[in-house]
């Protein structure tokens, strides 16, 4: 009996210490926890690890995080003058897409973040390339590489020519986890100035009309159209009365109240030409 006790005690100690050693983490503060690696861009000095929550890049709004590591595998926390440039190389031409500025994520040492809105997915022939420029200790660097952009399963970005002959990109930011409730809805709106330049649009209104096409195209009450907040994003309220597939019909209205794209949903018109989709 005594022997058994000693044996068991020994076993417990062994297991415990094994567990402890496994827990030992070389990076005590894991700033990328909850994120998944998408790809790594590299140059001679650094590796730039790109992360998103899903580990994928998709059409629409993507919140993107990255870390820069030097040759010794140490995280670089003093990168400055960060800029990025996504470019899609198509057979006949190249173009960019809306992208935010880059900043360090609050309360982190070495994690940089921003967002990019991809209007379309890449393929073998037509692909996206991401270039990240930064400087460390006064020296400028560039990391560059192809990235895979997948088609999102639901429509979450619209790129269109308005009646004012301007090209716009409108992308859904939130809700990313919709509920049967009044959801906070957020979107970003950009105007295309040139193939390579997209600028945020101020003072517009994004009118929303959520519908369930699978159920007689019913709507929901107490939605609030999206208007621009102090953070420059467009915010509104989206009521979803049940789970399932929702089509959020959109109309884009400029500062003087003129609708530049989209049509109201009526008896004869089941949906607008611009819309987002949600399914939960």
């Amino acid at each position: 009996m005594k022997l058994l006790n000693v044996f068991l005690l020994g076993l417990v100690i062994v297991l415990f210490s094994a567990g402890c050693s496994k827990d030992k983490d070389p990076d005590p503060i894991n700033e990328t926890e909850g994120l998944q690696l998408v790809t790594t861009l590299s140059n001679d000095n650094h590796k730039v690890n790109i992360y998103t929550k899903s580990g994928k890049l998709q059409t629409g709004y993507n919140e993107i995080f990255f870390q820069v590591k030097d040759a010794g595998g140490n995280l670089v926390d003093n990168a400055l003058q960060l800029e990025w440039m996504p470019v899609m190389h198509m057979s006949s031409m190249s173009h960019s897409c809306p992208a935010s500025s880059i900043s360090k994520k609050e309360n982190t040492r070495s994690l940089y973040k921003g967002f990019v809105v991809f209007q379309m997915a890449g393929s073998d022939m037509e692909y996206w390339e991401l270039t990240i420029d930064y400087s460390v200790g006064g020296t400028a660097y560039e990391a560059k590489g192809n990235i895979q952009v997948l088609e999102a399963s639901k429509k979450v970005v619209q790129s269109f020519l308005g009646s004012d002959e301007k090209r716009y990109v409108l992308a859904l930011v939130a809700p990313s986890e919709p509920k049967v409730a009044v959801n906070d809805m957020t979107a970003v709106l950009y105007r295309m100035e040139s193939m390579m330049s997209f600028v945020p649009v101020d003072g517009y209104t994004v009118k929303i009309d959520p519908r369930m096409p699978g159920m007689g195209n019913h709507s929901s009450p107490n939605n609030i159209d999206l208007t621009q907040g102090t953070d420059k994003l467009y915010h509104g309220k989206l009521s979803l009365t049940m789970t399932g597939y929702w089509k959020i019909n959109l109309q884009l209205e400029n500062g003087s109240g003129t609708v530049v794209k989209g049509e109201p949903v009526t008896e004869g018109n089941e949906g607008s030409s611009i819309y987002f989709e949600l399914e939960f």
Partner: protein
Amino acid sequence: MSNLFLLLQEKYFLPANFSKMFRFCFIFLLLCCAGGYAQSDSTHHRDTVKAVLLEEVIIVGDRPLRNKTNKPLANLEQYLEKANAVNMIRRGGYAWEPLINGMATERSVITIDGMRIYGACTDKMDPVTSYVEITNLEKANVHSGQAGSAGGATIAGSLDLVRKKNTFGAKSLKGIAFAGFELNNRQKILGTGINWQSPKTYSSIDLTFRDADNYKAGGGEEVLYSQFTKYNMSAIAGFKIDEHQHIEASLIYDHAVDIGYPALPMDVSLARAYIGSVEYVRHHISSSVHQWQTKLYFNDVTHVMDDSKRPVVPIRMDMPGWSKTAGFYSRVEGTTGGNNWKLNISGHHNYSLAEMTMFSNTPDEKDMFMLTWPGVQTNYGDLYGEASLPVGHNLKAVLSAGLALHNNLISKESGLESLKIFYPDMSRSKTRLLKRFSATMQYNKNHWLLDAGIAYGDRAPSVSEGYGFYLFNSFDRFDYIGNPGMKNEKSVSVNGAAAFENKAFMAKLSGSFFYLTDYIIGMPDNGLSVMTIGASGVKVYGQLKSAAIFNTSLDVNYQLTEKWYWTNKLGYRRGTGYGIGNLPLIQPFTYASAINFKVKAFSAELSMNGAARHNKYNSDFGERALPAYTVFNVMASQRVRLAKTSLQIKAGVENILDNNYTTFSDWNRVPRMGRNLFINLVVVF
């Protein structure tokens, strides 16, 4: 055997001098709170005695067998329908919803032996009355208005289904077996029961089975989806502690499957209830306190709506609902200074949850889900007392008063969030104080009994009215949205009755008038988009400034000769709402007459019942005018005794002329049953 017969009692109490009554009520409640009722010398009187007297005046001439009920094995609904105060909303062959004084179940309190039960269906397909069987019950007490509202706050009145009472006694074992068949819908009824008693214990158990196919309306047209199958088991056991104390445990298990609702777009695959209680009774406590009765109870109701039997639906869906209630009451009855009084403290907790899942017609699309009852708790505490005061030689005042605390709490976070779509500022919890009182004067001399009363009561919105989320009403074809912010609905009512009785003749005229303020009703909101495919619009529960309902009935019974007995009944109601005209589901002029012949163990009856044209309807609630109708029935019964066994055979034909008709209370105007041949056999051994 006579226990199988349900005696319907309608109690009318009547208020008197208003300020006196008010003062009395106030003192009364104070006394209750102080718990000093036993020493109290205040002049209490016993209303129940007088009320029962009034009942007896009406029922005395009615031997159970001669009771206006035609079939011993009729369903409970058919029994209840005989009461003047009661109409039944019919959505098919099963689970009719009782209307009391022209008001639906939100406005009444329906209890089983004082136990509160909440149906689990958002579409009212399972009123409390659907979870019991006639074999479980001895009688149903119908109280109009506030009188006798021990069960809780009410507007229209209360219906208490009283379970069969077993007793201690000399050792005996009795059995009963019964069988019935109805030709029209091929309903098979089978059942059995065993009754045991001894000086120290009693117990009984009974089982009932019913199975029906679709019924046929007059003219032979089959009413699809009107089938049902029901199993019911009831057990009761008592144990005597000593001469003046005993305990009793009881259980009802009711299980119905494959129930069609021809008036609705969905059927029910399962409706199930467990109804259990434990009771402690003590009597002869002192010279002034006769009885103290305390009961703990619990019930659990499951209701599963399903449309799998319907070949064509716009979208497939499942709609299950659950309701659980736990509660208690403690009731003391006594006599002080020759006056009878009763005090009742009760409380219950209910949890109601219902959900809806719709399966998209588009392949691979996710199911659509919502909470139609968002996990609503009802917490309720109640204090109630009734007493009677002699005012003169033949005159007495019967008083009752109650005070309740009512709380609703949404316990599902997701449910609260979904309701906040409509009410962004609503709070999770809402508490209300509910008040009720009544005062009745009763005058009783020689062959006459007169009474007149006045009452006040209020109520909280029901779970659906307060918290329902897109509940489709297939009658007016609107989706209904609850409104948690509504005020209490209030009612002031007056009622009166005059009865005359001598050896051969009985007549009773009674009437009541309810004036309701903040009357709760669905109001169309054109700005809202329907959820249900094909619905006409959305109604949100709101409150009318006022509504008024008038009820009247006349009973005239005459014992023509020793063998011939003639009963007659007339009824009429009128209901209007401020700004909307006629209230829906209000009974037009109706009549019933029966002539009964009885000699020794044989009896036969020819009866007719009908209604005048229904033209006080409201088309905004899906109603339309209805023609008058008259239906004739005939039946005969023979009792045979063989040693210790007695056999009763009853057979007859209902709707002899095979009329195709529908009444004001038929949901979506689904026609009633056509000609029906029935036979009931009951063996007691």
